[in-house]
């Protein structure tokens, strides 16, 4: 027996045939590609070519796109990316031409996600920074446990409406629900809004009944700087999705803030 060497076979091999270089852009075909292979390939291509923009096509359910990326790059996704899109992401911009599934922006640190459609449950879960724009509706528990600290403050903008437990346990950041595509009489879908909320702000345009609100938060009056903020994000939303931003500001907003930084301080017998 001669000299023996060890080969570790745990890493997937990149299929470079899927990657096309066109006019300074990188185009990448993800058709039926397993997510692990997709993400290894994506990371390697970004590392080697450092493109400003890369587009991924035929995405059907592949998870974790954008996870473990820290560079400034724009990733365009055509199709329906899988769960945990941009989880732990730190920097990139992702634009989805389609709907996003559950866990979009999970524990995101910085960067931007723009969804030209709807997004699923727990969108923006535990996000600490960056911005997420969803053109249409979102699912349950969106913005749950978002938090902020020092310069980091996440913002989540929802064009349509949201479902139950919106902003549950929210500890920071800004959650904006425009309620477009709803009539003035129609109330938002979410119940238990901001349950356990102890930081951050929720702005909701349109009708919200008292019983839809969690008991840890209260309505406060919109001030000038709140309107300025709404204008800023209405403008950004309109830019992304081709909408008239003035139409967004034509209806009243409800501003919701936590009543206490310590919602459960009185729960215990010491």
């Amino acid at each position, binding site marked *: 027996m001669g000299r023996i060497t060890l080969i570790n076979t745990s890493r997937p091999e990149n299929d470079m045939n899927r990657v096309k270089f066109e006019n300074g852009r990188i185009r990448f075909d993800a058709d039926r590609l397993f*997510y692990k292979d997709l993400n290894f390939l994506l990371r390697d291509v970004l590392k080697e070519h450092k493109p400003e923009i890369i587009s991924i096509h035929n*995405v*059907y*359910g592949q*998870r974790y796109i954008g996870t473990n990326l820290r560079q400034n790059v724009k990733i365009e996704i055509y*199709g*329906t*990316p*899988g*769960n945990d899109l941009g989880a732990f992401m730190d920097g990139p911009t992702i634009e989805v031409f*389609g*709907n996003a*599934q*559950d866990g979009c922006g999970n524990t995101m640190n910085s960067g931007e996600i723009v969804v*030209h*459609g*709807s997004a*699923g*449950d727990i969108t923006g879960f535990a996000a600490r920074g960056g911005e997420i724009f969803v*053109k*249409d*509706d979102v*699912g*349950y528990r969106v913005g749950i446990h978002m938090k902020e600290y020092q310069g980091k403050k996440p913002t989540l903008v929802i064009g*349509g*409406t949201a*479902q*139950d*437990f919106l902003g549950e346990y929210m500890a920071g950041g800004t959650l904006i629900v425009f309620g*477009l*595509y*709803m*009539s003035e009489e*129609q109330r938002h*879908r979410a*119940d238990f809004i901001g349950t356990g909320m102890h930081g951050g702000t929720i702005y909701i345009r349109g009708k919200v009944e008292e*019983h839809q609100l969690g008991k840890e938060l209260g309505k406060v009056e919109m001030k000038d700087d709140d309107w300025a903020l709404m204008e800023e994000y209405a403008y950004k939303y309109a830019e992304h*999705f*081709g*909408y008239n931003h003035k*139409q*967004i500001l034509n209806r009243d907003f409800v501003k919701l803030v936590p009543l206490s930084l310590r919602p459960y301080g009185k729960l215990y017998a010491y």
Partner: protein
Amino acid sequence: MENLSRKQNPYNDGKVIDSCGLFGMMSLKGNTFSGEDAMTAIANMNIRGNGLGGGLAAYGIYPDRPDQYALHIMYENGRGREETEAFLKESFEIVFNEEVPHRDSATGVVNPPLVWRYFVNTLGSIKEEDQDDYVVEKVMFINTKIHDTFVFSSGKNMGVFKGVGFPENIGHYFCLEDYQGYLWTAHARFPTNTQAWWGGAHPFSILDWTVVHNGEISSYGTNKNFLEMYGYFCTMFTDTEVMAYAVDLLIRQHHLPIELMAKVLAAPLWSEIDRMPEDEKEVYTALRQVYAGLLLNGPFTVIIAHQGEMIGLGDRIRLRPLVAGLHKDMLYLSSEEAPMRLVCRDLEYSWIPKGGEPIIGRLETNEVIYQDKPVVVGMDKNANTSSA
């Protein structure tokens, strides 16, 4: 399966824990199509399963024998088949029987048993209204008393195909691309233990009712006790079985409409009931009082199907995913959105149903019923924007 409990629950756990991916598709007009799309869709979610169980249910696949009960029966050996066939001969009039076609070359299936199908009529002495109960009783007998034998399904003009492997492998094994049905449901299973067997895969079925289910309900013991009081024996130790029996009790035995059945399994919260108008309040209070033992507490999503209907339902605080989609006459229900779009690239619209609100696709009326209709219609940018 004489030793069903031991087979299904080899470690004698309190219950059998599993979770999964679900998919269902139905033509509301009854147009038939092959099982290919359902297989493609469920395969796209195979990371939600772990290859230890998969299966599909199909409706409208036996148009030539629509009036006979189609029994899909698996045998682990010849002895089971001998005993079963003797039993079937004395219990039914067997109109036709054959081995369920399969591909020996199929990969990814583990120890396939012999699967045979029998098209049967109940004996002439059985009154029409008693026929279903009669079939249930005979199926229960086979499943609990006869060696090495298990009935996959026993409904009319429908069938369940399931086994150990990923669902697309099971579908390929059973040549499901050769069948034409108007309603297909599919299940990718993630059991925590391996000692999986073909009968333990899903869909779970009783008569023509099938259930595919995702989640792990915390009320299992309570639900099981309640059902046992009404004469159901929970031998599979799974949530799915409990749900199938609950549906049978509420709909077939107690004649509740599906909408109310959904309000028993995923009961409205008391805070919601407190806000209802007085008459509704009384209805929902009574339902919760009578059927407290059937509240499915904890995460679940279920796709229930029977002849002419497909029903999607999630728990009342939506702890498990369910996405719905519509395109022309097609209704889709899925654990994730991507598979719907994979098999229907220009899907008209999709939405996230509210927890506890059933989505019902109904062949009879060619309609989809859901109370919580989405405000935005799919990807169409211009839809409904005028109201803003």
